[in-house]
């Protein structure tokens, strides 16, 4: 009832925003309504998580006349409802204040509730028709917000690429569901679960589902749209697209691969794990070289999706091999990481939004010193940055720890591909985690620390109450999800149980605060204990130092090895910070080249320093593909100008061809 009411209120809010969009208050009211609806959906999700048999079902006489619309909330849906509506609530609360500054807000506000509605419906869908319609709706609603500021050339390009890739995703999912429904055309999920797909069908469904849902989630090499589209939207929408919509995509992948598909061999898991590893490393390598704060965050989303997919791939591999306990562990780890990412990525994008509304810039080069001017935003962003860098005791570390632990159990499988593949993926994951820390030290240090690099940054002031608190609540959640890991894993194992078939307790051996996935002696972790001891040691250190020594402090000019400059431009910039990394990693992968032109002695021309880089995936895959499609389109274009006779001839030839096919098939 609560859920239905919340869902129905969302389109009404959209309508309200369209009708009264001229008034300033209408936008705040709409977002406040979205906030309330998200909280209601959150509560709804919470009540259904853990109810094993009583998954509520609903059949409405909507949609296709012979199919009707099926809805169901099982544990997995309820879990994802929690993740999604949590991010949605924070983004809505943030937008109440943030939307006041947006020039294009009348092109954004009406679509926001529709976007929330579509994402929730994807999770509740219990037949392929509702699933796909909601999925498309989700893509289009977000696309409209991406192109809301269409006066910028960049945004138009982003919208264009996004639309093509969204169409590609659906183009893959459509036949996947078609194959699962079979010639009988029973599109309910219940029918798909019991259907045997056969060898070829099973192969195609898995491939299409990974490509379709993977392109929406941002798996390399299908990620190209993500770092263009996510930053182009207003920040509260970016937060939803990066923090939340990618989770809906992963939900689709889990739903199809682990629930509907039924029999998936371990090969798929191994492949998916490798793709996840490559995605993680590539994503973070791109991220660490970006100058635009929002693009950096978008690439970091690619990385985190890769990390979650490593866990998902492992779960599939373990399940395919019959090791359900380990499959449950890997899936818990993966889901944990998704939940964490939805919290801290939403937080970081909202932080970026706060920076933009305070300074008007999103390029790191002109920021600096914001922590002193925006203490709340700066502190919340710091928590998010530490969490995404997988630092204990925050939540990002727990999920990476669990994924590493399940990865370390990978070689237990009797397949050579897994024995050799798992260490390589482990190295990828470790590299991605370390580079993520580098990436966020750089982003935070350049934007929030040091001295302001422009007057806009120097004049920044703290954002309004609602924006501030939506970030603070998310930051607190980052801590809470990290400090009580066992409570979280217990909740997650409810969702995992129907998929892997085992009741799984991650804390089986040692009890509540100890996370000991396989057994007590195989390595354990306890965020709770670690925080308590860490705080105690911290207090002892401070107490002893102040007791033994002096407490005096003197404020002075910086020393800087004896020659301080009063020019903020002498600080390290985002580019100079990235330079060693560019030389170490970018030289081969991105063909990064630096050219320095020094004028002759006596010549007073300025010296120049230029960096050139190539995106191997864009120029190696997308650009040629785009050229081929363009070439085909040019040549097919001729068909538009045929005579009536020509069209009739073509219809005739098509008919003959079809009949021939039928005739040949009957002969066989």
């Amino acid at each position, binding site marked *: 009832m609560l859920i239905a009411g919340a869902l129905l209120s969302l389109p009404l809010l959209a309508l309200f925003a369209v009708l009264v969009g001229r008034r300033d208050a209408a936008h705040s009211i709409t977002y406040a309504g979205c906030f309330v609806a998200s909280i209601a959906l959150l509560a709804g999700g919470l009540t259904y998580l853990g109810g094993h048999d009583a998954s509520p079902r609903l059949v409405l006489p909507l949609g296709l006349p012979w199919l009707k619309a099926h809805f169901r909330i099982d544990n997995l849906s309820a879990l994802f409802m929690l993740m999604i509506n949590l991010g949605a609530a924070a983004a809505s609360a943030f937008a109440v204040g943030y939307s006041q500054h947006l020039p294009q807000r009348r092109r954004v506000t009406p679509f926001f509730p529709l976007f929330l509605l579509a994402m929730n419906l994807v999770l509740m869908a219990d037949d392929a028709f509702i699933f796909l319609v909601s999925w498309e709706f989700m893509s289009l609603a977000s696309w409209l917000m991406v192109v809301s500021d269409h006066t910028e050339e960049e945004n138009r390009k982003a919208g264009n690429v996004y639309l093509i890739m969204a169409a590609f995703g659906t183009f893959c999912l459509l036949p996947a569901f078609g194959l699962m429904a079979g010639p009988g055309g029973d599109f309910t999920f219940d029918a798909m679960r019991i259907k045997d797909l056969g060898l070829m069908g099973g192969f195609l469904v898995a491939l299409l589902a990974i490509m379709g849902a993977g392109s929406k989630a941002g798996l390399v090499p299908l990620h190209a749209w993500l770092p263009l589209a996510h930053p182009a939207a207003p920040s509260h929408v970016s937060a939803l697209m990066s923090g939340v919509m990618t989770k809906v995509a992963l939900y689709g992948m889990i739903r199809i691969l682990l629930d509907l598909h039924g029999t998936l061999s371990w090969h798929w898991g191994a492949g998916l794990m490798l793709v996840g590893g490559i995605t993680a490393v590539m994503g973070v390598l791109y991220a660490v070289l970006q100058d635009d704060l929002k693009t950096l965050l978008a690439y970091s989303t690619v990385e985190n999706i890769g990390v979650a997919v490593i866990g998902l791939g492992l779960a599939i591999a373990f399940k395919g091999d019959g090791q359900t306990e380990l499959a449950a562990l890997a899936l818990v780890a993966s889901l944990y990481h998704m939940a964490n990412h939805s919290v801290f990525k939403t937080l970081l994008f909202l932080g970026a939004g706060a920076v933009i509304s305070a300074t008007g810039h999103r390029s790191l080069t002109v920021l600096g010193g914001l922590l002193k001017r925006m203490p709340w935003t700066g502190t919340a962003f710091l928590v998010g940055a530490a969490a995404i860098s997988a630092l204990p005791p925050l939540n990002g570390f727990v999920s990476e*720890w669990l994924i590493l632990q399940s990865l370390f159990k990978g070689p237990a499988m009797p397949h050579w591909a897994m024995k050799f593949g798992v260490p390589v993926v482990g190295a990828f994951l470790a590299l991605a985690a370390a580079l993520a820390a580098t990436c966020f030290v750089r982003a935070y240090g350049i934007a929030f620390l040091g001295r302001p690099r422009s007057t806009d940054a120097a004049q920044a002031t703290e954002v309004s109450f609602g924006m501030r608190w939506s970030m603070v609540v998310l930051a607190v959640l980052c801590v809470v999800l990290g400090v009580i890991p066992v409570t979280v894993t217990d909740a997650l194992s409810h969702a995992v149980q129907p998929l892997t078939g085992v009741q799984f307790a991650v804390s089986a051996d040692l009890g509540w605060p100890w996370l000991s996935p396989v057994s007590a002696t195989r390595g354990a972790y306890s965020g709770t204990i670690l925080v308590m001891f860490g705080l105690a040691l911290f207090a002892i250190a401070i107490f002893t130092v102040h007791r033994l020594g002096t407490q005096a402090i003197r404020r002075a000019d910086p020393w800087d090895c004896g020659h301080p400059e009063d020019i903020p431009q002498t600080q390290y910039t985002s580019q100079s910070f990235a330079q060693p990394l560019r030389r170490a990693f970018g030289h081969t992968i991105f063909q990064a080249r630096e050219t320095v032109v020094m004028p002759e002695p006596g010549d007073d021309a300025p010296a120049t320093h230029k960096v050139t880089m190539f995106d191997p995936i864009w120029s190696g895959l997308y650009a040629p593909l785009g050229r081929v499609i363009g070439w085909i389109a040019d040549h097919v274009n001729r068909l538009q100008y045929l005579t009536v006779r020509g069209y009739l001839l073509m219809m005739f030839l098509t008919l003959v061809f079809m009949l021939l096919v039928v005739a040949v098939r009957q002969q066989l």
Partner: protein
Amino acid sequence: MNAMIWQVLQIILVVALAPLITGYVRWVKARLNGRRGPSPIQPYRDLYRLLQKEAIVAHSASWIFRAAPYVTFASVWLAACIVPTFTTNMVLAPAADLIALVALLAVGRFWTALAGMDVGTAFGGLGASREMLIASLAEPAMLMVTFSLSLISGTTAPGQIVAFVLAGNVGVEVSLGLALAALVMVAIAENGRIPIDNPATHLELTMVHEAMVLEYSGRHLAMIEAASMVRLTLFIALIATLFAPWGIAQPGAGPLGVLVGMGAFLAKTFLLASALAVFETSIAKMRVFRYADFLGGALLLGLLATIFLYVSEAV
């Protein structure tokens, strides 16, 4: 109950011993250079002197600058409490394993790097940038070492690895040798020793760690210095414990066993510290852009260590 006592003893031991180890390394290096060198207990005096001086904080510094020394010290200290030195029977043992240890060290590094950038000087940024480059390769290398140890012994908890090795389950393996080499390279990088960094230099082109903490003075500097001393102790203890665990008291050992463990730990520590001094004296500092080769090598050694396990299994 015993586990609690040994844990408290360990917490005190790592902090109390750390300056002595650093002082000892400096003393041996001075002797090898033909100098008399300051007494090995000089670092205690230095730390005390720093505590007495007022701390100078730049106008542009935020609260991060003032919090970072304590956070760094506490996180490194916490990490050092987890590595078994003289006994594996400790309360905190199940709270964190080797992966958490790597991450705890990352916490300290994260804060130091941020503090380096906080004041807004060129050197701070330079140090932070180089430190993070080193970390981005050293950290995965250390995780790969953890991976291969966990494949050999089936666990990531250092105490359990020790128990596994002491039970005589492990012979001489190529993998162990490779993992040891990788861990030593990581230890050199993480502690800012030659050839990666020189803890005694203030030459601007070669500084890494020193560049980050250039603005610190007084008790803040004392905390930073103490943290790097504890970190050195931690890595020496880690190498000694994982690759030469002989003598360590296991759960169930009486006070005599613990005493033997303590003696063995001190002997191993000073042996390794001497080896470090000899190594540092006999090698030159490396160019910044060659770090990637050095640490990439460590990462690949770690990876090879895991792969070799299966090769030796198959042969």
